[in-house]
């Protein structure tokens, strides 16, 4: 009995001193979560968390900031990471797992349910190699997005262009041909996103490379084996440059326009632009437009067209939640967020912009026809590739984003930009 009391006392002292992690697993316990979601996305994530809090009595303290990755890096450096954090890329997941900063979550997941509800490719994205060289599950995909999407307003797009867009067998060349008649600014484009500015351009180049040169070249490029100065990569950059040249106003407005508001001119009369290349999550931003556009009626999408009809491929992205402090409460949260009930809490929200990778979530749970179509594309896609820049080493990804901005600022510098990226590639993949 005395031994039990002594153990209890020691535990209390250790908990108090912070020497051990004492996040409980029931009422009164809490979990701190850091993530990049603010405004409508934050509301969606909080809807997921509300179900968890109600079910377990565990409080979740969520901090949302667009600079979550740099905040996380700073907190890790100070030795005070949150219990869990949303990582923007699998590259970051692998990096933190290899460094031993992330904790394996195998024990937090019901492996049989995971195998039944998530595809093998998705589970691969959640896996990384730990410091001991053994692979483990290190993260879960909280929500996914379809990146290869071109948005338009069906009511404002001229019928001739609309007919080309919605016809079977749409190809890149047919799209460019149809767009030629849409005045000086057919494309909507905005690169600004504070410390992550430039990523909308990386998405463009990834999609162009994937569709122009195919998945094999794409994989080699992402793995650092295809030089940036290669013909395929250069071709993608040049195609992107040609699109940007028709996004109106020169480099200044493109660099300074926020990605979230870049598509807003689609909904004005007359439209300021007609086509917006953004991930599926942009639906949440459209919903905030003062004109209150409705999915399906005021905005719709077509998948990024292949160069040759019938050879489509989809680029996807996902936000991964990793555990930095192994507490019972954090483990419970991780396990809960993979369940269909948790996933439904976000995807059911009107214009929530979230797509679930959980196959047990039925399409009928999505709140509008556009979300259902995106989810259908995502789950039935033939060739699927994860966002290339998100899969690259962090240094390479950052350099890629900066290079996009530099290229847009001065398209004549393409050779300089690509040569510089190759220099980064030589050290980033070591």
């Amino acid at each position: 009995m005395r031994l039990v009391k002594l153990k209890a006392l020691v535990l209390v002292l250790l908990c108090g001193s912070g020497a051990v992690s004492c996040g409980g697993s029931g009422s009164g316990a809490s979990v701190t979560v850091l993530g990049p979601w603010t405004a409508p996305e934050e509301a969606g994530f909080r809807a997921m968390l509300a179900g968890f809090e109600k079910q377990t009595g565990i409080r979740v303290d969520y901090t949302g900031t667009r600079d979550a990755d740099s905040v996380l890096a700073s907190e890790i450096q100070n030795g005070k990471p949150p219990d869990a954090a949303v990582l923007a890329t699998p590259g970051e997941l692998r990096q933190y797992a290899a460094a031993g900063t992330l904790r394996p979550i195998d024990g937090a997941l019901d492996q049989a349910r995971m195998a039944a509800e998530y595809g093998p490719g998705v589970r691969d994205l959640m896996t990384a190699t730990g410091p001991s060289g053994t692979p483990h599950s290190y993260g879960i995909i909280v929500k996914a997005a379809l990146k290869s999407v071109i948005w338009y307003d069906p009511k404002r797009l001229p019928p001739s262009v609309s007919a080309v867009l919605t016809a079977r067998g749409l190809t890149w060349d047919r799209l460019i041909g149809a767009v030629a008649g849409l005045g000086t600014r057919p494309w909507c484009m905005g690169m600004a996103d504070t410390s992550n500015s430039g990523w909308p351009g990386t998405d463009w180049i990834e999609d162009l490379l994937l569709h122009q040169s195919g998945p094999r070249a794409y994989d080699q490029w992402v793995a650092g084996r295809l030089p940036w100065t290669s013909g395929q990569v250069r071709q993608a950059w040049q195609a992107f440059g040609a699109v940007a040249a028709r996004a109106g106003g020169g480099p200044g407005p493109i660099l300074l326009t926020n990605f979230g508001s870049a598509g807003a001119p689609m909904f004005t009369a007359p439209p300021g632009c007609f086509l917006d290349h953004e991930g599926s999550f942009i639906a949440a931003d459209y919903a905030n437009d003062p004109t209150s556009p409705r999915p399906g009626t005021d905005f719709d999408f077509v998948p990024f067209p292949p160069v040759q009809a019938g050879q489509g491929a989809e680029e996807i992205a996902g936000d991964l939640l990793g555990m930095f402090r192994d507490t019972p409460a954090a483990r419970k949260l991780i396990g809960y967020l993979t369940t269909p009930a948790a996933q439904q809490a976000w995807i059911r929200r009107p214009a929530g912009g979230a797509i679930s990778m959980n196959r047990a979530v039925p399409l009928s749970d999505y709140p509008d026809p556009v979300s259902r179509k995106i989810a259908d594309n995502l789950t039935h896609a033939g060739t699927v590739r994860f966002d290339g820049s998100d899969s690259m080493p962090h240094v390479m990804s950052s350099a890629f984003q900066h290079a996009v901005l530099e290229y847009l600022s001065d398209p004549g510098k393409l050779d300089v930009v690509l040569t510089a990226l190759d220099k980064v590639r030589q050290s980033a993949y070591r």
Partner: protein
Amino acid sequence: MVASATVVTAGAAGRRSWRLYPRLRLMLGTAMVLTALLWIAVTVPLLEARTTIAFTRDRAIPSYLGALTAHAALSDADRSAWLSFRSGEAQLIGPGQRYQDDITTAGQNLEHLAELDTAGPEGRQLLRAVNGQLVTYQGLVEQADASYREGDRPLGFAYLTYATTSLHNPGGLLSRVDQIGELDHRAVLSGQNSVWVRPGVLLLPAIVAVLLLGFLVLVQVYVALGFRRTINLPLVAACVLLTGLTAGAFGAMIHSGQAFQTAESRALPALTGIWQAQIGGADAGTTALRAGRTAGSSGGLDVAATEPAQQRLDSGLAAAANTGGLVVVLPLLVLGVAGLAALGLQLRLHEFRG
């Protein structure tokens, strides 16, 4: 015992005296209990008021002002960077010395906030986010500087715009600093609204003091009647001391409370108003410079301009914290009252023994 036996054998007068002795003992006990109660009733609010004032003066207000100063410094840093880029000075000196000084000021204030730790776990979490966002902000300004010096002015201005956006947008650096400030402000208001610094807290000690005084007067009358003495000097002295003690203590506590309320309701808003004006000036300058308009280098962060208001606040809070050594003197005075009351009653009790 000898005295009481003598009193018992002395007829009717003896029987009356026989009843007097235990009553005097009872009165003595009651006087001691009431005196102890008075000490507790005065000391508890006095100590609680001191704790509240000390917490507000030493932690809540410095934290609140620290967050405000950090905000003002960051706003001014941003304006200084824009000024340097717009004027072309950035080609030689980057975002400039004033930017560097402002960032240093902001960093020092954020460090001070961490040391004070007034806002608790929520504040610590916010502060960690702020530190990360500050690194991001500085990185973007450095990137702007690098692009500008390489001759790519549009990209330089784009990066500077990203930096400013990361500072000002919802969920950005300044909104996080403001959230910390809001938590600290709540702590300041909690001090201001504390019952311990309100005059109403004196009601209970006042009742106890009046009870004790009334009781001592009654004892005085009773003893005068029972022993045919007009005046019991120690009891009179106890009453005088008690009245003086109560008046002095209450006066000091009321003065402290009033000084505290004045500092919080007048001196503090006057000071924060100056900081807010400086923030407004810096932000207006940044907006003008971003839009390509001109903005002078005057206005913005000026710590010296806040010093008179800061001194008024400091002196107000110092006056609030100054209760004239009451905590030390109070037990001695209460002991004095108790001693004098005991002496007055003991003298009568001795008459029985004698």
